[in-house]
């Protein structure tokens, strides 16, 4: 399978199965559009010469054609799809990553919150330490031979239960050596409760910290008001700046959400970067039910795609000027990066990754929390629904029909199971708009690589 596209003046051909990326001139690009990968003959067929006769001289077409044929012979164009047996062989894997919803409560009232303003529709609740400890024990046991274990403190707003966060970290650290594990902690926060002591703690213990901010003041405050209706921007921005200044270069992200109300989100990214001084930025589409007034819909695709292109131009210009702006979704390794096996089943939900509620209930991931039919077990009694785990383990890009035939499958790895379920009532059926946006981001990310060669 190949994907050929034009962007920013570049003709790019991607060979999905080998991972090869080729930059083509116009003749080769036009030629490629006429080639049938299942019937690629060494000689340039007459119909191609004819079809392109008005644009190019026959010898030039033949030359371009044989360049493409050489790629085919080198198995970097129309290369064979040999991954299905690997996908079929995939089964349940150790639980190595956990989202701990330490607080089902929040001090903001974000309009797009998928967690019903923090409590997932279940009433406010903080995780007791005993549940956190049981969750750590559960993961140590169920991760079997895996060494690197991840714990993301999440909510609601995790800083509302920070004392327990610290106790959980201490507990995990106290047992990791004897079990030959290496815990990595991350936290996602809205920033409201940050203070110097918490900042220093986070900077010391958390390998990554995700700081929520949507961008410009009015954009942020429109979607991210506090309980009393006032915006959060002025409270959190100085705290984020202090955190990052004292972080010593460790990983962080300023993470925002865009909705229909800020389809010009590249301005928010620039604001975060240029005006506020954060160079690690991730701003992502809010995926919401269609009836939410500011939800992104199919008809918004063109505007969003154009905005991603604008953003790609900005990133290229900044990088060429030696600046460091890193937009998370344009970050991509064309050489190396994860192995093909990893790419077969991107989202680890319900299999290698689970979410745990303050009650200790286990759900496939944070987005399934609160939906009774998806409850998988509980860390206090050590139960885990093996059948459900199996269902998620089998959700690869080969069991999802749309993904199997998608050129982007080894970049996207099958999208978000929770979105799929939310929109299509099946974890196996990708949500179309999300797919289109993902593919656009991949196109831009590859184009940026080409532009910066």
């Amino acid at each position, binding site marked *: 399978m190949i994907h050929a596209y034009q962007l920013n003046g570049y003709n790019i051909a991607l060979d999905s199965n080998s991972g090869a*990326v080729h930059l*083509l001139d116009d003749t080769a690009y036009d030629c490629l559009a006429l080639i049938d990968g299942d019937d690629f003959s060494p000689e340039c067929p007459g119909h191609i010469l004819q079809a392109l006769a008005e644009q190019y001289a026959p010898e030039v077409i033949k*030359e371009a054609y044989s*360049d493409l044929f050489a790629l085919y012979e080198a198995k970097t164009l129309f290369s064979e799809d040999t991954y299905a047996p690997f996908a079929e062989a995939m089964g349940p894997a150790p639980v190595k990553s956990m989202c701990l919803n330490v607080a089902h409560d929040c001090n903001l009232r974000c309009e797009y919150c998928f967690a019903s303003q923090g409590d997932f529709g279940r009433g406010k609740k903080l995780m007791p330490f005993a549940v956190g400890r049981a969750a750590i024990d559960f993961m140590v046991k169920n991760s079997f031979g*895996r060494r690197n274990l991840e714990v993301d403190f999440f909510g609601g707003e995790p800083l509302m239960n920070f004392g327990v966060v610290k106790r959980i970290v201490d507990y995990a650290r106290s047992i990791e050596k004897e079990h030959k594990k290496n815990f990595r902690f991350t936290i996602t926060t809205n920033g409201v409760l940050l203070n110097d002591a918490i900042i220093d703690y986070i900077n010391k213990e958390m390998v*990554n910290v995700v700081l929520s901010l949507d961008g410009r003041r009015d954009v942020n405050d429109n979607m991210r008001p506090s309980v009393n209706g006032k915006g959060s921007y002025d409270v959190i921005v100085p705290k984020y700046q202090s955190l990052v200044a004292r972080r010593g270069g460790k990983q962080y992200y300023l993470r925002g959400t865009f909705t229909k109300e800020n389809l010009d989100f590249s301005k928010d990214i620039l604001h975060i970067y240029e005006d506020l001084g954060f160079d690690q930025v991730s701003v992502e589409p809010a*995926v919401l039910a269609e009836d939410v007034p500011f939800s992104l819909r199919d008809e918004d695709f063109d505007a969003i795609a154009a905005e991603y292109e604008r953003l790609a131009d900005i990133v290229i210009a900044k990088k060429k000027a030696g600046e460091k702006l890193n937009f998370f979704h344009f970050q991509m390794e064309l050489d190396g990066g994860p192995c093909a096996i990893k790419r077969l089943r*991107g989202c680890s939900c319900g299999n290698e990754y689970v979410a745990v509620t303050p009650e200790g209930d286990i759900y496939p991931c944070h987005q399934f929390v609160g939906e009774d039919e998806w409850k998988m077990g509980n860390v206090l009694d050590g139960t885990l629904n093996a059948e459900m785990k199996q269902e998620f383990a089998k959700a690869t890009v080969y069991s999802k029909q749309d993904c199997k035939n998608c050129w982007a499958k080894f970049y996207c*790895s099958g999208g978000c199971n929770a979105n799929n379920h939310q929109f299509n009532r099946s974890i196996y059926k990708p949500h179309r708009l999300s797919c289109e946006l993902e593919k656009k981001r991949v196109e831009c990310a590859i184009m940026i690589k*080409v532009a910066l060669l």
Partner: protein
Amino acid sequence: MKHVKTINNANLKESAHKGGCGECQASCQSACKTSCTVANQDCEKE
């Protein structure tokens, strides 16, 4: 080649045989958290 420039090593196939150790970060594509799409992750095989 005059008309084509290949810009990377096409090593995905090879990686299928050597990979799958599972030590890298779990990934989540969703917008609501420390989301990590697959293509921008690091391999941690030792």
